């Protein structure tokens, strides 16, 4: 058993720093906020490292299998003797891995933000939001309880909302934050219903008990799988709905529309939330419930696989046409998360079958490194160019050498070129898909090629292509970012390059036993070649400024336009919400409410008002009037008593 007190510090330190900075920082020490936030995160990171070391190398393993350890548990709300909402810390390979990733990336982002947000008057607010976000994300990954995860899930949602809307003077940022919040909330509705179904079927909220009951306990399993609704069992419905919540946070189809817009937030936020940590919450959730998905509800897992694969391809196609570099990265994030999702989807439980699970978690891990790096590089570029548009950039390789190299490393990593990290994880994913489902494998390969193409399109357009023309100065000056921004770039680039060499299967696998995955050289040749082909096309099209891409776009006009317009999903939703829900349903109801319901209320109110206005006049203040009323009433009563009473 690990002493739980210092594990508690991992989420609590950011929370304390949130309270400190949020409540006092702005007034008393605006300059020191960034340092406080960063230090608390650094402490968290160090503790996470210690915990990870202890877990993976000292106490986590019993008989070669990594255990799920409840390091801390406290009953928060007791509904019935069986059902309670607990707050606790659950340690298992994925939660420990996520602790490391979240604290590490968050720490890097904190350091980076010191440079990026330098001079911003609301930097204390920014840091308090960052701390809040980190706290919620850490709380999410260590949840012992499906309701605890839901609470932190929503906290993550709200902090994401706050951070996207950080530049609240910009209407687009406000709209984006609202969109993100509403879309994910909408998906979370599914999550909540899913939680209710699962907890109803398993009569518990606790993850371990729930997983145990819904995978091995025949009594619960029978009732959960026989109940049928539209041809699917209750369990399948519950898991699908939970996955819907995950799809909302992870920007899978059809809930992906918020992610590109979320790029309105400051770039470090995009790196932290919309690349490395928050968006993988959905993947994490599916992984958390993976035994149930895999053993008891393979239909739901199939849905995960197809949604993941399709989102992945879909996002990759759109990414090829976008011109805003952050949007390209956003779609690439969505695509990579699709990879993780379908890796989970094609995975089996235990042993070699569980390769997809390991691969997915591995990709989550490596993706966090190189995607954070990509965003931070993009942030550095934007910081220098003051524009998000690709067309405003070009030829920056001489001006920003460090950024250039780190960006290249990240691109190679995401593309899956050996020996960079993405290669290992992506190769495992593709292998798992190949063994399980050839259609998904084909989509994966196609996506990998497209990934290579659009990443290097981005790379060549930013750093090569035409020479850079600054808007501000006639002569392009040396534009490297300050040290606080470069340091995280270099560190992340280092990790993006080498993390692939970790034998990930040894630590993280679906059933806790070590999974020794061989590097299948013969298998990897094809994906790498395809990736190289993608790079080659990008090189050919974008190395020098020329009009081939334009011609190509014109040649594919219809498809290109559709992809450029993100396949009009936003417009479709707008049409559904505005055209159908608002106009056809909302307006009549609003009319009914305003005129009939309110009218009735107003009528009764005005009638009462009229009556009281009338009888008010009796209260004239004139004594003799009162006397007349009194006299008249007395006569009336006397008459009444005499003639009606007897």
């Amino acid at each position: 058993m690990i002493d739980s007190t210092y594990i508690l510090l991992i989420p609590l330190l950011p929370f304390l720093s949130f309270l400190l900075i949020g409540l006092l920082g702005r007034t008393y020490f605006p300059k020191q906020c960034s340092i406080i936030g960063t230090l608390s995160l650094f402490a968290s990171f160090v503790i996470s490292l210690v915990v990870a070391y202890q877990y993976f190398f000292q106490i986590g393993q019993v008989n070669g299998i990594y255990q799920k350890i409840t390091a801390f548990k406290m009953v928060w709300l007791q509904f019935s003797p069986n059902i309670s909402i607990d707050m606790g810390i659950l340690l298992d390979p994925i939660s420990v891995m996520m602790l490391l990733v979240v604290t590490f990336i968050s720490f890097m982002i904190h350091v980076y933000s010191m440079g990026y947000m330098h001079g911003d008057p609301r930097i204390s607010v920014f840091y308090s939001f960052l701390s809040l976000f980190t706290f919620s994300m850490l709380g999410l990954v260590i949840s012992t309880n499906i309701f605890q995860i839901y609470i932190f899930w929503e906290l993550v949602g709200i902090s994401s909302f706050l951070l996207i809307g950080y530049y609240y003077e910009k209407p687009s940022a406000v709209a984006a934050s609202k969109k993100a919040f509403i879309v994910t909330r909408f998906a979370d509705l599914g999550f909540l219903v899913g939680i209710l179904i699962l907890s109803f079927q398993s009569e518990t909220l606790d993850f371990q008990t729930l997983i145990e009951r819904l995978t091995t306990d025949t009594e619960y399993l029978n009732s959960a799988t026989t109940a049928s609704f539209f041809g699917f069992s209750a369990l399948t419905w519950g898991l699908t709905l939970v996955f819907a919540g995950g799809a909302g946070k992870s920007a899978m189809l059809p809930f992906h529309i918020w992610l590109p817009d979320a790029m309105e937030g400051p770039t470090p936020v995009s790196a932290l939330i919309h690349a490395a940590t928050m968006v993988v919450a959905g993947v994490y959730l599916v992984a958390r419930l993976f035994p149930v998905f895999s053993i008891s509800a393979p239909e739901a897992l199939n849905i995960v696989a197809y949604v993941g694969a399709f989102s992945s391809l879909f996002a990759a196609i759109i990414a090829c046409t976008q011109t805003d570099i952050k949007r390209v990265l956003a779609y690439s994030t969505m695509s990579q998360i699709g990879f993780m999702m379908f890796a989970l989807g094609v995975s089996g439980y235990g042993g070699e079958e569980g390769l997809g699970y390991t691969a997915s978690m591995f990709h989550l891990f490596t993706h966090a490194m190189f995607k954070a790096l990509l965003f931070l590089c993009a942030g550095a570029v934007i910081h220098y160019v003051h524009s998000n548009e690709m067309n405003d950039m070009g030829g920056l390789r001489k001006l920003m050498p460090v950024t250039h190299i780190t960006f290249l490393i990240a691109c190679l990593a995401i593309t899956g070129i050996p020996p960079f990290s993405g290669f290992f994880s992506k190769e495992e994913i593709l292998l798992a898909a190949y063994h399980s489902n050839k259609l998904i494998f084909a989509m994966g390969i196609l996506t990998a090629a497209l990934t290579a193409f659009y990443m290097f399109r981005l790379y060549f357009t930013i750093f090569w292509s035409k020479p850079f023309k600054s808007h501000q100065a006639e002569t392009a000056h040396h534009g490297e970012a300050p040290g606080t921004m470069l340091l995280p770039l270099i560190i992340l680039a280092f990790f993006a390059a080498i993390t692939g060499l970790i034998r990930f299967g040894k630590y993280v696998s679906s059933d806790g036993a070590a999974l020794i995955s061989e590097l299948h050289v013969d298998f990897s040749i094809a994906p790498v070649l395809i990736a190289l082909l993608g790079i080659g096309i990008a090189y050919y099209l974008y190395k020098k400024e020329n009009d081939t891409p334009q011609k190509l776009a014109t040649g594919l006009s219809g498809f290109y336009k559709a992809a450029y317009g993100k396949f009009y999903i936003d417009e479709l939703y707008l049409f559904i919400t505005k055209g159908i829900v608002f106009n056809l349903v909302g307006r009549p109801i609003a009319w009914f409410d305003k005129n009939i319901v309110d009218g009735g209320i107003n009528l009764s109110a005005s009638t009462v008002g009229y009556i009281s206005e009338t009888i008010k006049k009796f209260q004239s203040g004139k004594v003799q009037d009162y006397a007349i009323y009194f006299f008249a009433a007395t006569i009336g009563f006397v008459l009444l008593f005499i003639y009606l009473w007897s």
Partner: protein
Amino acid sequence: MSASTIVFYILAVGTIGSALLAVTANKIFRSAVYLLFSLIGIAGIYFYLNFEFIAAVQIVVYVGGIVVLIIFSIFLTHESGKDMEKPNTMRVIFSALSALFACLFTLFFIREQTFIKTLNASVEPTVKNIGRQMLSTTEHGFILPFEVVSMLLLAAMIGCIVIAIKSRPAA
């Protein structure tokens, strides 16, 4: 028609007549004097009914106390000899009609009603009897209401002083 009947009629007509004048007179002082006559007339009726003690109280308290108090307050609040403001004609007509109607209705009702006299031996309303029974503490004694009324008088006295005292102008 015996002499006593005539006396009663004179008393009744005098009382009612002066009461009518009291509520219709234009000058307030005259009104007060008519009220005085009316109250004396009522005292006369008490005498006529052999309730000498009540008649004496009536004269002492009403004629000697209340009417004097009213006249004092008239002096305090009016310039003497001035006509009072005329009441609203509509109100006069309406009030007269309704009072007349109610009066006739009541009289009609009194005519219809039959009163039954008790057959018990009568008690003379002498001062001695009144005093005995009022201050007795036995079953039908009125000592408790007597004390309560005395408390009420005290409270009224203090209240009058508090209300009517001239508040000192704020420094």
